[in-house]
């Protein structure tokens, strides 16, 4: 049983589910739609405010793209927990760690690819509306934010994927993570110091700021988000190996 064969198999499984393929494409569509809406209306007035972070503003739409990324990670794995589909998968590929690693790969790699397209295209699309406030990739932190933003989207998808395996339900994961990134972060909000800065989304989004506050720094923050994702993936791995299917 070759890894390539399992990769091809899992890829077929993923692209043959509209809900999963759809939420992956939604990462890009949502990001661009929000970019279009926000930048064509309030883009310049936001930039005119004192203390505005032109880099963070440029990647504003990724906040919404990440919800699609979370949905993608969750639905890609939850398909196996519907009516015991995992049994069919494990009967074909009984090496559980291999199956899991491949599943994570077919979530992570497309999420990173779509993340890159999303972060660069939101940047370029958004800046076309910015007039005299427009920045380019030479702006300090802009290129770093574009690359880091893509990695961030991938990490959120992987976090959701790992949690979905542990909880065996996309609904549970979505109702946990989406309120978390939408509400908790906004409420805990700009207290980007203390414990709050170690939350996966707060930490991960440091990389989108021109001059991130707090002690972590842009890449340090992304690393903290990566630790969250890896922890979720390890928990998922443990569950896949230990549980009866």
């Amino acid at each position, binding site marked *: *049983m*070759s890894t390539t*064969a*399992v990769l*091809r*198999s*899992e890829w*077929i*499984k993923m692209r*043959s*589910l*509209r*809900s999963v393929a759809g939420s992956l494409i939604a990462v890009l569509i949502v990001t661009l739609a929000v970019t279009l809406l926000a930048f064509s209306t309030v883009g310049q007035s936001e930039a005119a405010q004192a203390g505005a972070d032109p880099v963070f503003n440029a990647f504003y739409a990724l906040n919404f793209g990440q919800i699609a990324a979370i949905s993608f990670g969750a639905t890609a794995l939850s*398909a196996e927990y*519907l*009516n*015991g*589909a995992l*049994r*069919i998968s*494990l*009967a*074909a*590929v*009984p*090496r*559980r760690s291999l199956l899991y690693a491949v599943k994570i790969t077919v979530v992570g790699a497309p999420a990173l690819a779509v993340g890159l397209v999303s972060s660069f295209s939101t940047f370029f699309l958004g800046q076309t509306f910015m007039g005299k406030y427009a920045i380019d990739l030479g702006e300090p932190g802009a290129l770093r934010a574009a690359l880091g933003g893509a990695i961030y989207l991938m990490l959120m998808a992987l976090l959701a994927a790992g949690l979905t395996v542990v909880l065996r339900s996309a609904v549970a994961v979505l109702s946990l993570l989406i309120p978390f990134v939408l509400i908790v972060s906004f409420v805990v909000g700009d207290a980007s110091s203390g414990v709050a800065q170690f939350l996966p989304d707060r930490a991960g989004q440091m990389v989108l700021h021109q001059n991130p506050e707090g002690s972590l720094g842009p890449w340090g923050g992304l690393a903290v988000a990566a630790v969250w994702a890896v922890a979720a993936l390890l928990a998922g791995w443990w569950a896949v190996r230990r549980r*009866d*299917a």
Partner: protein
Amino acid sequence: MTSIDVHELTKEFGSTRAVDNLTFSVRPGRVTGFLGPNGAGKSTTMRLVLGLDRPTGGTATIGGQFYATIGDPLRRVGALLDAQAAHGARTARNHLLALAVSNGLGARRVEEVLVEAGLGEVGEARIKTFSLGMRQRLGIAAALLGDPEVVMLDEPSNGLDPEGIIWIRELMKRLAREGRTVLVSSHLMNETSSFADHLVILGRGRLLADLPMQEFLDSRSRPRARVRTTDSTRLRDVLIRKGYDPVQGEDGRWTIEGAKAGEIGAIAATEGIAVLELTDEQATLEQAYLDLTADATEFASASSAHPQEA
């Protein structure tokens, strides 16, 4: 040849023992019917054989190997566990293709099994549009993908129409004739008696019987002959004289408890009585099974009187 070997297999879910110290082998070249009421542990045993559940104790192997250690397992073992498990949003073709590709099988094989299962026309339809019978056919197609030497089917005739039931019966017989190992679970007795050569019977997770079907029927039925004649009075008198107790049914046939057709035939021949019809009447699988489980129930209630068994 490849057999399925279950050795002292036990599986507990919490405090309930779904499978209790089970030992049996499923041999190639015949259809083994896996019988027992719902909840007897048939499906759990199959999951344990496939390495999907972890046994509490004992082992289950296929050709001496644990399922999880078989490379490209679909080429050696085909299983249908639950027809509803296939994801409804996929097309039948994609469902099979994903399985095939993982075990190094090609798209051509997918088309072959689709046609073999009678799903050639609906390969592009989403599985959620399928009836239960079509899902069963899809599950059987998946089991046949790798042309496996071991086939395990859990309640395959569920939801199948009469045509489908005949198809699956002939398919299982053919697979066994080809020398494959075929294990088929069912709780339908008449159904099972139409295809099984051998029986493994479970009750409450324990092995109740493991024997050829004919032997099981013989062991569970008292001989009884049925005869129809043109000369009822003479036949009755002769039989009573010989110590039999013939009883005439409403249709005119005589039933003789404790007699074999051969004995009655010989008597009729020496007496010169014309016989129109003469058969051994055998218990149906259903009767034999109920007879067995009645014993088992007594055994269970007797043993539960002992506190250490509880």
